[in-house]
Each structure stands twice: as structure tokens, then as C-alpha cells.
């Protein structure tokens, strides 16, 4: 389906981008609409993070067109693994960072303090404001960055691997939180390599391997054929409680003696 830029927060039309001669993204066409919840899945080097960067506007396509209305407000939550956790900031300081306009004074105004307290309360970490960022659990760290993103009152939240390296409980927490925010009207686009734990639970998926392999609901997209095209590996797809469950079909190479017989 060709995206209609008119009602989209951001739309990409045949976008191609590469860091060198080899393109990382090829002819990508998609639209992000208000209150949509989409996951981008694909193997390492498939262009997931680059696609987020194109949506953010930090890289410009070498070919194609990105349409982003001026009014569209986008916030970004980075991967936890990319953060310097020894950096000397408290949770309050970190959340307030996103308030870069409107006030020249370094310290927070009373209104800003109230806003930070509200957003931390909404995300269930109100009592952690004075703690150093390293003293938080993985789920709390993720919530802190979402709080920083929400302080800008975005229409679209972009997240890079939000559940990478977190335990099952934290992953469930994160899914509930993002689902709640999405129900309140926030559009969410995230990248994930977790097919069963994350992707299968999202309303909409984009399978990416430098170009879009398939888009749609998980039941339509998570098929053995699409996954083989996306990941270059054979996987089996089962069904459990209406959700697709992906199972590796790893077959070891035959032993040298068996190879000789073959």
C-alpha cells in the first residue's frame, strides 16, 4: 500500500541510504500514523537502527523522500547498552535534560520540577528522582529514558531495542507500559530482535533486511517463509493461544564420516 503523507506523522517514499558505497536501506516505503504501534524486526546489519535514524531525521536519504510535517514532535529512547552509566547524573537531572528551550537558567523552575515529578510518577519511579542512574534496575533505567522522552510531549516515540538484555519480568513491564502509552494516543515505533518475547505481541510489524520484506500484523508476517527471507535462517512457526511462536530449526553440519557417505 502506498502511504498517504497527508495523515502520517512521518512517511518514507522509496528511501535509500548507505554509509558507504553499499546501501543499508533500499527503496523503503512506509508511513507512521498517529497512535500506531509498530515493531521493526530484522537481523544485525539489516538497517533497523538506520531506519530509526531516517525517521528521526539524523541521516538524510541518498535517494527517495522523507515527509515530516513541521508539527510532528518525535522523541527517541536509545539502547541501554549505548549509555555511559558512570556519567554523574541523577534521575531528575537526566529527565530534565530534554527541556533545552525556554529557560536559560541551569536550575529547574517550579513548573519544571512539577512536570518532572508528574512524569516520573506516571511511570512509577517517582521516588527515584535523586538516585544516580546506575543505581536503577534495567526496567527503571528504561522508564527513566521514556520519562525524558515524554517530557517533550511527543506524538511519536522511537525506541532502539528497548528490551535488549532485560529479563522476562522487565520485558512484560515494558510491553504493558508502552501499550498504555499507545492507548493514550502516542505512536510508538521500536526495533527488536526478540521475535517471541516482543514482536509477536505488537499490533504491527515491519520485517527488514535492508529492504522491507513484509509488513502487517504478527500473524500475517511471522511465517516461516518471511522469517527465512528476513533472517536467512530456517525457522518453524507454531501457534499458541492465537500468537505465533517461532522455533529454531537448527540442524548441525553432518560429521566428516557422514559427509563422506553422502
Amino acid at each position, binding site marked *: 500500500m502506498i502511504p498517504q503523507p497527508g495523515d502520517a506523522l512521518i512517511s518514507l517514499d522509496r528511501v535509500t541510504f548507505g554509509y558507504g558505497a553499499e546501501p543499508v536501506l533500499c527503496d523503503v516505503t512506509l508511513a507512521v500514523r498517529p497512535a500506531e504501534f509498530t515493531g521493526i524486526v530484522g537481523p544485525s546489519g539489516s538497517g533497523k537502527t538506520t531506519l530509526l535514524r531516517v525517521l528521526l531525521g539524523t541521516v538524510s536519504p541518498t535517494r527517495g523522500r522523507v515527509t515530516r510535517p513541521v508539527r510532528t514532535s518525535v522523541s527517541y529512547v536509545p539502547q541501554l547498552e549505548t549509555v*555511559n552509566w558512570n556519567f*554523574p547524573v541523577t534521575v531528575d*537531572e537526566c529527565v530534565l535534560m*530534554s527541556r*533545552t528551550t525556554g529557560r536559560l537558567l541551569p536550575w529547574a523552575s517550579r513548573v519544571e520540577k512539577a512536570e518532572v515529578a508528574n512524569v516520573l510518577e506516571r511511570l512509577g519511579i517517582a521516588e527515584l528522582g535523586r538516585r544516580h542512574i546506575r543505581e536503577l534496575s534495567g526496567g527503571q533505567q528504561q522508564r527513566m529514558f521514556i520519562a525524558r522522552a515524554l517530557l517533550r510531549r511527543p506524538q511519536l516515540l522511537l525506541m532502539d531495542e528497548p528490551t535488549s538484555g532485560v529479563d522476562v519480568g522487565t520485558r512484560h513491564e515494558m510491553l504493558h507500559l508502552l501499550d498504555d502509552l499507545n492507548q493514550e494516543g502516542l505512536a510508538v515505533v521500536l526495533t527488536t530482535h526478540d521475535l517471541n518475547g516482543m514482536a509477536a505481541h505488537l499490533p504491527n510489524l515491519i520485517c527488514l533486511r535492508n529492504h522491507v520484506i513484509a509488513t502487517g500484523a504478527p500473524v500475517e508476517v511471522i511465517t516461516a517463509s518471511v522469517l527465512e527471507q528476513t533472517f536467512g535462517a530456517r525457522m518453524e512457526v507454531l501457534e499458541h493461544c492465537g500468537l505465533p511462536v517461532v522455533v529454531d530449526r537448527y540442524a548441525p553440519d553432518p560429521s566428516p564420516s557422514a559427509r563422506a557417505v553422502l
Partner: protein
Amino acid sequence: MSELLAPFHYEFFVKGLVVATLAGALCGLIGVYITLKGMSYIGHGLSHAIFGGFAASAVVSFNYFIGAGIWGLASALAINQVARKRAIGSDAAIGVITTASFALGVALLTKFGNRGPTFDAALFGSIIGVKDSDVLVILGVTLLTAAVVFLRYRALLFTTFDPEVADVSGVSVSRMDALLMFVLSLSILSTLTVIGVTLVAATLVIPAVVARMLTNSFSRMLALSTAIGAVCGFVGMNLSYHLDVPSGTTIVLTGATVFGMVLLFTGGGRLRRTVGLDQHPDVPATTPVTSAR
């Protein structure tokens, strides 16, 4: 006691003390950003590059601040240009350009002699010969730096902590980086006479590292680092007079002593706060998570 207060009767000492205290505070303040951004080596390199300009200015009897300033700026641009072409890394570019500039400075001073501060004074700092203009210059640079940090506090903090997200949140990261480089160059230039080329980098790093060991808050780290730098400058300058050794040496040794004392009293655990202070870990390669059968 009277022996301790004796140097305060000398005008040259009071001027040197004011300059050293301001230099320590200035380096402590800017050092927080330099250390957290992993730019310590740039600070070290720039001070060496500026020495080339210092020597060239002295040989042709040109104003030291203008000559060395232009030279330092040209070196910074050259480093940026070489690193941009990706032929070699920025650390290698700093190594080549700044040491070449330093070597040129040594060659010029050896061949043609020096009409300004002595060779030793330029390398290790000196309390002798601090002029009124030196006091005014460092006072101006300190006020300018404080104003930049105060008025651009949030943008600088965001850029230092998370440049990628800062960039998409409306902060001009390249402008902030350029502003920081400009202030760093001015700071090195204005403190060179008292601290010396070879020791400036230490005054940028030590107060910031000690402050990091004492606090987890960025705003408190800025205040502590500035105060520690100022105290080290003040005490170091007094020691320089009484021990009759170059002022840069005593300022750095005072800082190192403060570091050792903080380490001793707070335990090695606080040192861990400074591990990888300037690093953003690599993103690990990801593979799809599925159920294996």
C-alpha cells in the same frame, strides 16, 4: 606564620597567586566537560600545539596571545580536517600535528632565542613575570567560560551525556562542540604562563576526576571541580614560592595529593565511578531470540 605570609608582600607573587587560583578554577570547570567527553588527549595536544605558536610569536616579537591563539586554532582545524578524511584516527592526527608543532617550537626557540617568557617557564609554568595583562586575560576568559557554562548549561550537559538524543531534541551538537573547543583553546592559552605546556592537561583532568569520586550529581561535580582546581592553584602557587620549583609542577602535585587523599578516605570503591567515565560502550551485535528446539 610570618614566613608563610611573607610572599604576600611581593606584588609579583600576589599577581601570580590570583592567576594560579583563577587558572585552577577555570581548568577545573572546563575539565569536567573535557574529561566526560573523552577529550583529555585533545587538551594535552592543544597545549603542545600552542607552544609552537608561542615560540613563533616570541621569535618575531608578535603578541603572544594572538599568535599562539591563531596557531592553536589552526592546529585544531588541521586535526579536525585530517580526522574527517578518516585516513587516520583523530588520536593519531593529534599525535602527529601537535607534537610536530611542539617540536617546531623547540627548534625555533633553540635557534633564535627567546624574547618573551623563558623556555622552562613555557614548559612548566612560572610565577615570575606575571603581568597585569595576564591577570586581566585570565579573568576575562574565566568570566566568559563561566557565562558559557551558566547560560548553555542544559545544552552542554545533554551534548556531553547523550549527543545522539540531544541532536534530535533540538540541541545543535556541532555548535556546542565548537563552543567547547573554543573555550578550551582560550583556557589553555590563558593559563599557559603559570601552569606550563606540559602540565595543563593534568589541571584539566585531576580536579574533575576527584570531583567525580565525591559526587554523583553533575551540577555538584561542576562546583566541586572548580573549587578543587582553585584550591590546588592557590596552594600550588604558595608551594612554588617556598620550595622554589616551577608553579605548574606544584599545582599538579597538589592536585595529585588531593586525589590520593580522597582515594584514601573514600576507599577504592569511589575510584570505580571514574572507570570508563568518557566511554560509551559499543552496542552488542543482536541475534533473533526464538525458542530453540
